[in-house]
Each structure stands twice: as C-alpha cells, then as structure tokens.
C-alpha cells in the first residue's frame, strides 16, 4: 500500500473526509464501550441519540452548539491564513469578565440598552485579549500558538482572582462567585421554559457575514492567498500583518461574545469556570467544518452532542465525564487521517514504480 499524489486536491474527499472521520469515531467509540463491558450499540445510542429525546434535550444541544460555532467561525478565519489562535478559551474568559464587569457596574440600571452594552463589552474584552498575541507576533515575531495558549492560563487566573476577591458577592456566603446579574443584563429565552436564549440567533448571522467576507471580499482573498502560499502573497503586496490582526481580532471578538453569552445566559453570574473547554473544542469544530462557516455550524452541532452524550453516559453507564474529550480527540485524529485522501490516492499495487527509485 502506498500513497500517490493527486494532481489536484480532491473536492469530493474534502466533503467525504469529515463523514469518514465521524464513522470511524463511532466505530472506535463502540469498541471503547465494548472494552468497558457495555453493549456497544446501546451505549452509542445512549451517547448520541438519547440526549435529543425531548425539547429540553434539543434546546440544551443548541445552547452548547452556539458558543462552539461562534468561536470556531472566528478561529477558521485565522487557520485559513495560517494564524494559529489557540487562545480562544482565554479570549472567551476575558469576554465573560468584561461582560460580567459591565453587568455588575450597571447593577442598578435597567433599560433595553443594558444588554447590548454588556455583550459589546464581551466582544471588546475578547478582542483586546486577542490583540496581545497579535502585537507579540507582528511586533516581536513571537509565535502566536505559544503566547495565545499561555494567555489561556492567565485569563482563567484573572477570573479566579476576581470572583475570589474584589468581585465576590457580598451576599454569597463566601462562595467564589459574583452577584447574579439583573434581568436587564440577561439574554431572554428563545423558547420559553428552556435555557436556550436569543444569543443562538447570532450564529446564522455571523456565519453568513463571515462567509461573505471570505468568499466575496478582497480581504478574504488575501487571507486565502497568504494562507496557501505566503510568498505569492508578499509578491502581490498583501500584508501578512493585516491578516494576523484581522483574524485575531475577529476570532477574539467572537470568542468574547461567546463568553459574554454564557455568563448572561445559562450561568447568570461570574463563577470560577465559565466554559467546559469550548475554546479548545472549537479548534476541532473549525477543522471538522473545513474552515467553512456552514460546515462549522454542522461540526459545532456534532461536537455539542458529545457534551450531552458525555453527561448521559456518565449518568446511565457511570463512565467518567472525560469520555467527552476522548470522543472529541478521536474525531480530530480520524479527520486528520482521512484528510490524506484529499491530496493522495491510496494504491494497493505491488511496487511498480516507487518514488525513491525514479
């Protein structure tokens, strides 16, 4: 068996690879459950189907897909231009901090303008935090993978300090949490009786706008060129620094918005942990969705399901909650493996003409 380069990347395989990866993940997941002594089909049913059995399940599913999709759409902009922002978890956290701080500052205020202001603060908080790796990269050539990742740890400590210290609720019995936000700062429910909020409506809007920028604007073209062949980009006079700034600010802003919507939505206050790793899972969503907004929305839905499935499996099968990350990691591994089919053909022939001896 050997790999033979295709003349052109296969478009069919671009679409087929994620599907292959999901199928392989299901198979491997079944094996994992079987190894743990469960009936694999029943366990997979518990994991992937049972959580969506009622309206609550479906609303929780969309609730979790919302931050994933928003963050991944932003990250994908950068991945297309070879800007590796791994700091979405920190940008989400800083967005939550900025939004939460604004909501607490406006504790006495009421009015329709409070919520937009709080969400805007979240966007700006996330974008400002993403500006740090952008400055360090464009001005000092520091690798943005490492700087943005280090800033994740810093952001979580900032949040921890705030809720343990200056912002701790005066009536919270010393628990590390802020006051609950007032109604003026909370996102209204989209479906009454569920936690799904109107913030979910941002997803189609953002997806559409980013799609338009990517495929219909000169800036989108520059991002693609610089991502594919940096040399061609610089001959054409495109500025790599502009792409770095743009993708980090937009990515950070969207992650910040996601963080703001978490604390103004299902959580309703600042607590030490505002995200179950959405910033990292969104990286997988961006890959799985082929850096295309529509693909990312579908990928976010699939990955959101792993969170629900992990909860369900923990309750029904008593497996550790970390099964979520195991499934998410498997999806990404299988996807990267399947991606080989885009650029190469698998040949099973005997050694007629191997590359090395030509």
């Amino acid at each position, binding site marked *: 068996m050997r790999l033979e380069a295709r003349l052109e990347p296969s478009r069919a395989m671009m679409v087929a690879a994620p599907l292959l990866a999901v199928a392989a993940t299901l198979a491997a997941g079944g094996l994992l459950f079987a190894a743990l002594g469960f009936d694999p089909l029943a366990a997979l049913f518990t994991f992937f189907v049972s959580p969506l059995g009622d309206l609550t399940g479906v609303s929780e599913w969309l609730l979790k897909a919302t931050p994933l999709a928003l963050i991944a759409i932003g990250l994908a902009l950068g991945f297309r231009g070879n800007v590796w922002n791994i700091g979405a978890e920190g940008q989400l956290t800083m967005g939550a901090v900025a939004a939460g701080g604004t909501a607490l500052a406006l504790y006495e205020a009421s009015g329709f303008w409070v919520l937009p202001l709080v969400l805007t603060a979240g966007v700006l908080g996330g974008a400002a935090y993403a500006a740090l790796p952008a400055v360090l990269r464009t001005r000092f050539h520091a690798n943005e993978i*490492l700087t943005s990742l280090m800033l994740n740890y810093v952001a979580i*400590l900032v949040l*921890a300090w705030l809720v343990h*210290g200056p912002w701790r609720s005066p009536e919270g019995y010393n628990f590390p949490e802020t006051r609950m936000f007032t109604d003026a700062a909370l996102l209204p429910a989209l479906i009454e009786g569920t936690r799904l909020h109107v913030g979910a409506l941002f997803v189609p809007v953002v997806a559409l706008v980013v799609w338009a920028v990517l495929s219909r604007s000169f800036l989108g073209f520059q991002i693609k060129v610089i991502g594919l062949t940096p040399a061609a980009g610089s001959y054409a006079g495109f500025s790599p620094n502009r792409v770095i700034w743009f993708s980090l600010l937009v990515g950070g802003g969207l992650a910040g918005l996601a963080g703001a919507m978490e604390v103004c939505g299902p959580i309703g206050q600042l607590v030490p942990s505002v995200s179950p790793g959405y910033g990292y899972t969104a990286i*997988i969503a961006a890959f799985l969705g082929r850096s295309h907004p529509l693909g990312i929305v579908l990928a976010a839905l699939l990955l959101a399901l792993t969170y629900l499935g992990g909860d369900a499996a923990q309750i029904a099968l008593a497996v*550790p909650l970390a099964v979520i990350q*195991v499934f998410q990691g498997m999806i*990404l591994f299988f996807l990267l493996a399947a991606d080989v089919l885009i650029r190469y053909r698998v040949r099973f022939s005997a050694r007629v003409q191997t*590359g*090395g001896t030509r």
Partner: protein
Amino acid sequence: MSDAELLTLSAILAAMVRAATPLVFAALGELVTERAGVLNLGIEGMMLIGAVAAFAVAHADGGILLSIAAGAAAGMAIAALFAVLALGLRANQVACGLALSLFGVGLSAFLGKGLIGTPIEALPALPLPGLSRIPVIGKALFDHDILVYLSVLAAPAIHLFLFRSRAGLILRAVGENHDAAHAIGYAVLRVRLLAVLFGGAMAGLGGAYLSLTYTPMWVENMAAGRGWIALALVVFATWRPARALLGAYLFGGVTILQLHAQNWGVGVPSQILAMLPYVATIVVLVAISRDESKIKLNAPACLGKVFHSGR
C-alpha cells in the same frame, strides 16, 4: 545567615530542582524531535499520558523501575500515533500536535478516574555519597531521586549525541534539509520516527516525574501547561540542550519563588502570583524572538515541513 536560613535556602534550591525536572525531560525530548525537523505540539498530552501510566503501575505496586518505564512507554506509544498521522499520512504537524494534546488531556483523565485521591509513596531519594554532605548545596542538588539525576545527565548526553556522533549528524541533516538527506540515501522518515518516539518517551518521563515524585498523586490535567512551557523553552534554548537545561531551571526557580511568595504572605493575591510562570514564558519568548535572525539562524530549516519522497 543563620543555620535556619541556610536550611531554608537549601530547601528552596531543592524545590527548584524538583520543579524544573519535568520541564527538563519534556524540553530535551522536544528539542531532539525538532532537530529532526518535526514540530510536535502534543507534549502536554504525552506528559499526561505518561503521568497516568506511571502512576497506575506504581499504584498497583509495580515497583520503581517498572513505573518509570511505563511512563516512558506510554508517552512513546501516544507519540507513535502522532507519527502515523504526521509522518505516515503527511498531515499538518501543527494540527496533529494539537490533536495529540487535546486527546491526551481527555484520555488521561478518562483512564485516571479511578486513581484520583489515592496517594502513593514518592520515589526514594538517593543521596550521592560524599556530595550530598556538602553544606547547603549538598541537600539541594545531590539528594534527589533517580529521575532528577537522569534528567540532568540527559542534557550532556543529548549534546554529545547531536554534535559529536554520526547518528546525530544524520538527524540534524534530516532536520535541516530533508530532500538533500534523502538524496544522499538517508531514511528521512525512519530518522524522524525515531526522533518523535524519543520525544514521546522523554515527555512521558517528565509526566512520570510529576505523578511519581512531584505531587505524588494523580490529579486530572496535572501537567498544567508544562508541556507548552517546554515548547517555549526549546525556542528559548535556540535548540541547544545545555540552554534548555538552564531555561528549565530558571522556570523551576520562577515556579518556586511564586509558591514561596504565597507562603510568605506577600500582599499580592495568590492567583496573580500563580500567573508568573505563564507570563514569564511569554516574556522569554518575546525576548528571544525579537531578533528574527536569531530564530532563523538556529531553527532547523525543515521544521514542521512535510516530507514526500516521491516528488
């Protein structure tokens, strides 16, 4: 200084050595991997897998050597997964490394669930005869367990291998120019596979040190970013083993200073102090990257590039 103060100083130095040791292992392993032209961002995942495997064996009374070997073997096994994708299937190395880190965090937490909260006996200290009796430094430097000594010896050994041996020359040639190395007849992918496996084993040892001696317990996500700090250390070291060792000890110092500052009751909240190692990583990275030519001259020229012999 009084005797008590000298004793404290000695204890602080010893703690610094302990804090540095996992970084020494991980950074030296990654350094060899990168010298062969492969960028493996999965250190964090490999360390965690190594940590949980070593702890599981120690917990089952497997003995010291077997626990250590389990950590190295587990790190190596998960690195093999990376090698299959990044070398065999020619996938993007950055993406594969990220996948390895994310997967390693999840898998180690999954496998280690039943081990949480069960303490084990830390690796025994092996005081070096004579040397450990030197005042202050003796206790600080020469009264540690076998992994600490191993990590310190690894730096000169790797230096000799890379710069004084034929195999090391081949490994560097593969990292600098894989097409030329291939044309001369070296098996580029085999060399890289071995380098990746070595990096995995070293990261696994770093993880094993965390769960066997440093804590000694299994705690979910106990690497706490050390794998990523190790990556920055390789850049800081401009791909030289001795500097990686030095860098790791500097970071050990920063970690211990912030812990002690918390104990001494400095008027700074503990969360702010805990940021120090991460902020220091960024500062160090910026300081070394500012001069672009420094990185360009020192980084292996084919770092992160996909090799395809059939071109």
